[in-house]
């Protein structure tokens, strides 16, 4: 018998014991790590989405186009769009009231531009009761308050905007349809007025008044013109972001009193990730 080749010690019991202890520790550790990872994953996803949205929100301020593949951007000028705040004012008792002369303008705009004249009454009802409009309230919010589906809202977006009253309708940047609805002109007269405003033939309010006097004899437009400007200075713009042709964000920015661009209201339907 060769005892010299035998190893000393109780190897088997020691091995069994070690295996048992290691298994218990590993099982508990694995369960803990798995739950912990699950918890972290959820938070991480929402943080990643927020970070991605912040990146997109910076694009309009940098006037840059998205570098992400499949994402395209479209700039929209909104200074030439009718501001719904023109519809309301406050009386001496600080109570809201609707300016009657503005109602036909909104009705015409909704008919000509969005083909939704039925929205006029809900808009008036809401504005009668609502407080003053401040920055941070977009047209999509407004239509949401009226329970208008977003599909309908998208059609109204190029026709109306809602901002504080100080954001005037810039006639030099207004579309022919806006001019037609605002001054109750025919399509050809609006086209002509638009052309004159664009090439500088009509440079100021006096010239607009004389142009309108030819088409609306005896009608006074001085009150309506108070809500307008002919500066061609952009004070409201939006960026529409698309991913593979599908719109996923609407970023709305305004120029504040200090002359800085600030966020008005951004909407994300969803967020494409890298």
């Amino acid at each position, binding site marked *: *018998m060769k005892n010299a080749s035998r190893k000393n010690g*109780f190897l*088997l019991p020691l091995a069994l014991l070690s295996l048992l202890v290691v298994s218990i520790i590993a099982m*508990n550790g694995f369960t*803990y790590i798995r739950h912990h990872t699950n918890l972290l994953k959820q938070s991480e996803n929402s943080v990643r989405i927020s970070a991605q949205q912040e990146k997109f929100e910076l694009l309009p301020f940098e006037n840059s186009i998205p570098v992400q593949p499949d994402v395209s951007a479209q700039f929209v000028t909104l200074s030439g769009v009718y501001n719904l705040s023109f519809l309301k004012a406050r009386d001496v008792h600080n109570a809201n009231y609707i300016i009657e002369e503005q109602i036909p303008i909104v009705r015409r705009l909704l008919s000509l531009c969005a083909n939704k004249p039925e929205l006029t009454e809900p808009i008036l009802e809401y504005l009668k009761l*609502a407080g003053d409009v401040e920055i941070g309230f977009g047209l*999509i919010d407004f*239509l949401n308050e009226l329970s208008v589906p977003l599909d309908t809202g998208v059609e109204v977006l190029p026709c109306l905007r809602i901002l504080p009253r100080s954001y005037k309708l810039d006639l030099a940047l207004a579309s022919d349809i806006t001019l037609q609805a605002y001054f109750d002109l025919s399509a050809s007269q609006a086209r002509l007025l638009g052309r004159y405003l664009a090439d500088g033939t009509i440079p100021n309010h006096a010239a607009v008044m004389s142009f309108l006097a030819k088409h609306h004899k005896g009608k006074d437009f001085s009150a309506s013109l108070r809500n307008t400007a002919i500066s061609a200075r952009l004070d409201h713009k939006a960026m529409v972001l698309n991913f593979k042709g599908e719109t996923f964000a609407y970023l709305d920015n305004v120029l504040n009193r200090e002359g800085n661009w600030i966020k008005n*209201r951004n909407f994300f339907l969803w967020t494409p990730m890298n």
Partner: protein
Amino acid sequence: MSSYRKPAFTLIELLVSLALSGVLIVLLNSQITNSIFTDVKIKKQNEYRLEIESVLEQLNADILSASHQPNGQKSIKFYALENKVRLHLKRFGISPNTQQLHGVEVIWKFDNSGITRSINSAEGNYRRILSSKQVNAEIERVGEKVIKLVLTNQHFTKSKLFAL
């Protein structure tokens, strides 16, 4: 006759090993059983914690997507009374019937009966129970645009800040 034997454990070693294993199993049995039960308990707690995390993420998504009021603030109202919290907010949601995006009112309730999320829209009302376990909820405004929701049950307390 050659008496060559391969090196191996002796009978005594094997018997001692078996005896030791038996003792170890008996000793560790209660420990293992406890550990299994504790694991189940921890698992349930973790599942509930995960459930609460998921609820809070969903609430956060609702708050992030809430529409604004004319004053520029988010359209969110909250009510707190004796460990019960209700949150009302307006946002866009996809209608299950028409698949159209339109405005909906979302109501969150945290109370003794658990956590529920209701959606009221022009097309009808939907209510979903997200957790049926009792939870105490407290809400407080910690800044001009930040609220803090604290959920407590017998095992843990979870709080989250929401930016308005």
